């Protein structure tokens, strides 16, 4: 049985070296075609921007501070969009990878 154990381990190493095993973590369990990833990233940025703009405009209408909160939340929306894309590749918390 000793050779068995050694073989399994060497096989795993060889597969990892050749990149035959899908890398864990990247993108989670979602399909990882380049078009799919690009589309997902685009949707994340656009939706965060939309939420930021709408939130800014609503607050402006409520408080009568047009256009200052709109401009501020436009920036917040952009930052949130970039952060969404960042999270797409680095999900926060490690529990999901083990689970």
């Amino acid at each position: 049985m000793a050779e068995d154990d050694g073989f399994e381990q060497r096989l795993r190493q060889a597969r990892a070296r050749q990149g035959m095993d899908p890398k864990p973590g990247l993108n989670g369990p979602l399909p990882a075609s380049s078009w799919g990833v690009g589309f997902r990233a685009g949707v994340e940025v656009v939706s965060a921007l939309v939420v930021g703009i709408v939130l800014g405009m609503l607050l402006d209408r409520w408080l009568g501070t047009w256009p200052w909160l709109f401009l501020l939340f436009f920036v917040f929306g952009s930052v949130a969009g970039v952060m969404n894309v960042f999270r797409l590749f680095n999900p926060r918390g490690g529990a999901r990878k083990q689970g």
Partner: protein
Amino acid sequence: MAAETGTIDALSQFQLTPVLGPIGAAVGFSQSNAHMLLAAGLITALIMFGMSARAVVPGRLQSLAESSYEFVQGLVVGQVGEEGKRFFPFVFTLFMFVLFGNMLGLLPYAFTYTSHIAVTFGLAAIVFVLITVVALALHGRKFFGYFFPEGAPLWLAPIIIPVEIVSYLSRPVSLSIRLFANMVAGHVMLKVFATFIVLLGGLGAIGPLVAILPLSVNIALVGFEVLVAFLQAYVFAILTSIYLHDAVHLH
């Protein structure tokens, strides 16, 4: 009808028209609602008739019902963990409803209700309310710590907190836009190439030969759309599970 006027009219397929005569018109019962009812009926029929035999060795319908059940269960338990089992009925309903909506829309004369952002945003809003309520119920006030990660310098709070709130609120928007945009794009492409077939086919003697090109594109597109229909339902379900995971475990 588009080909008769010689123009490409790809968007009229998304128009809502009342069905069921004057009664439907009076209550605003459109073909979209009719397809939703049809999908709900088909899903119920699949599960009811599929599981009525209760055979140890499943037949075709039973194995379809069982494999869809096991697929979603594996997805939910894999993403949320053991405590995610109580959310299984919710995710299963959502997945089957979106899947049947996408698939039914590919049949001729059928309407794709998932191609309306009102529908997809409605579904995403339900998910959003659920994850927020679950997180609040399980963690109480600690939920608001979600918007300010531990260990970040305090002077960054005025930037981090609004950004995190916007990022959290963008979840239902991105969830709904993804499904809606995929379905609309696919159906517009099918319609455009289908119109090309008719327009090119009318070009005299050489027309039918040239029309083979868009026809072959459309055949490939239909296959691609079946893939997209399944994939988008899967993505909707798995993102719901990921958000539920965040709500249950709260990092």
